[in-house]
């Protein structure tokens, strides 16, 4: 038996500490780089008319993406209305009712599978299911496609976060005579609320900036989203179309739209963080 090299162990420790610090620095450098480009290139494309007017034809000055901004908000809200309640209830089932049952195991498994379903598959599925049968693209289809993506994310985080709540808490509430659903809503969900909000935040952030599921569902439109039952303008598909176009003015507008969608998504995240901090 001989003493292992303490010096070597400490050197390894320091090497890892330095590497970890550098790793964190790399992450931040890229974040700052991306945000900087979006802000500096996007801000110059913004003007009052950008938020109030319809798109101008390529080459023509002026115009805006007001229709796309409105469309994105509407589609995301519709998706949230469909996806969040369903996801939370499925998560509650997994954490509170389905544990140890065959059905619960299967659903838990399928939630994970569904989380692994690429967003473009959600678009493809909704295309075959809704767009083909109705015969036209629509904002509704877009919202359903986005809701499909939200459902498993919300369900999984809900289930995981509620599973972390110790059983003793449930038991002590039940022992006071509280009905099961009240225990779940008032005790379990409450103690897990920061986790639940994080899950919803993740879902909203991922979904409202999604492009792929909208490509074959909501499509895009140069007009106001008068009715949800036709192709509906939205920011992300607009960015894709404009960025791939050869027109400099459209590429410029794509950066402006990038700025708007980034700012919007980040604002949602920060708002949620604020609410989270205030309630805990």
């Amino acid at each position, binding site marked *: 038996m001989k003493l292992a090299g303490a010096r070597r*162990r400490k050197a390894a*420790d320091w090497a*890892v*500490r330095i*590497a*970890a*610090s*550098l*790793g*964190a620095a790399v*992450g931040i450098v*890229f*974040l700052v*780089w*991306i*945000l900087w*480009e979006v802000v500096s290139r996007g801000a110059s494309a913004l003007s009052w008319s950008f938020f109030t007017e319809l798109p101008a034809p390529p080459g023509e000055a002026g115009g805006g993406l007001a229709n796309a901004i409105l469309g994105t908000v509407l589609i995301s809200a519709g998706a949230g209305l469909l996806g969040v309640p*369903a*996801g939370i209830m*499925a998560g*509650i*089932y997994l954490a*509170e*009712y389905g544990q140890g049952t065959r*059905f619960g195991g299967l*659903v838990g498994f399928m939630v*994970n*599978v*569904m*989380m*692994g379903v*690429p*967003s*473009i*598959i959600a678009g*493809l*599925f909704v295309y*075959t299911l809704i767009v083909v049968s109705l015969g036209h693209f629509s904002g509704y289809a877009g919202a359903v496609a986005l809701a499909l993506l939200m459902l*498993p994310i919300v*369900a999984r985080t809900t289930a995981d976060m509620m599973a972390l709540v110790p059983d003793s808490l449930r038991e002590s509430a039940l022992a006071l*005579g509280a*009905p099961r*659903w009240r225990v*779940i809503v008032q005790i379990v969900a409450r103690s897990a609320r920061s986790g639940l909000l994080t899950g919803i935040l993740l879902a909203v*952030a*991922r979904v409202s*900036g*999604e*492009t*792929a599921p909208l*490509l*074959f569902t909501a499509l895009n439109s140069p007009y106001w989203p008068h009715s949800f039952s036709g192709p509906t303008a939205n920011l992300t598909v607009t*960015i*894709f179309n404009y*960025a791939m176009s050869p027109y400099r003015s459209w590429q410029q507008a794509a950066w402006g739209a*990038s700025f708007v*969608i980034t700012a919007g*998504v*980040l604002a949602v*995240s920060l708002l949620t963080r604020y609410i989270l901090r205030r309630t805990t």
Partner: protein
Amino acid sequence: MSLENTSRRNTGDVLFHGAAVLAAALVLLLIAGIFTDLVRHSWLSITTFGPRFLWSGAWNPVTGEFGAASSLYGTFATTIIALVVAVPLSLLIALFLVEIAHPRLAGPVSGAIEILAAIPSIIYGMWGLFVFAPYLADHVQPALEALFGGIPWAGALFSGPPMGIGILPAGLILALMVLPFTTAVMRDVFGLVPRVLKESAAGMGSTTWEVFRNVMIPYGRKGLVGGIFLGLSRAIGETMAVTFVIGNDHRIAASLFASGNTIASTLANEFTEASDPLYLSALVELGLVLFVVTFLFQVAGHLWLRRLRGGAGGGR
């Protein structure tokens, strides 16, 4: 306790339970629906090409010849690059956040990494196409070519026109996109390691790195795998960021800077333009392949997790 109270409670419980069961069943219905629907709509392509669709490199809308080989290659190559870069990096960042950084620094750094996750994928595409690709073309690609150009096998990996576009740039951007997800999960997993367990390991004379490697990683391995799978599933089907920078070319080239395509980028680029039924059907079959591949990955992952749970060790 009065009878009235009891019955009211039961009604609430029954309704709530029922809603939860319905939501759970919806998940199963949707998965089954996706599969059957995609099979139905790709039936024409399946019957026309048979299994050779999977290894055929052909992709010709004019002659009506379609195969998934180049898309599959691009999908796996970019995903592997992304994970090879992102997993070690996010482990390091999680270690930094949980054990190394001063709490006052860890909060903001952690928040910054989370913001990376909040950035929509199309923004990564914009940044990748208009900023990162030119940067790679001007600085990184010439350097790599100078470094490896003389070596016969490695040289081919980095050859090609200096556009900063192709498999490697797509993989790197995917890595960046995956990073916040894997980091967040790993950070949370390490945060759940009981304080007393870490103290116990430190109390044995372990360095921070040894506590991390010997206790925290084994304790949280289940969650770590979860984090990696979250990253993997995001990378494998990620569409927009890849579509912007991969070049969208149906071929398999040795060079990491050659244009390629992935299943998702092909769908994004060609789906709305495909008018021919066979073409459309082939695209849906491509989507079906992507769906089945992700499905199989999940199954494999879960079987592995189950084996771990049954074996020796394992916290939580």
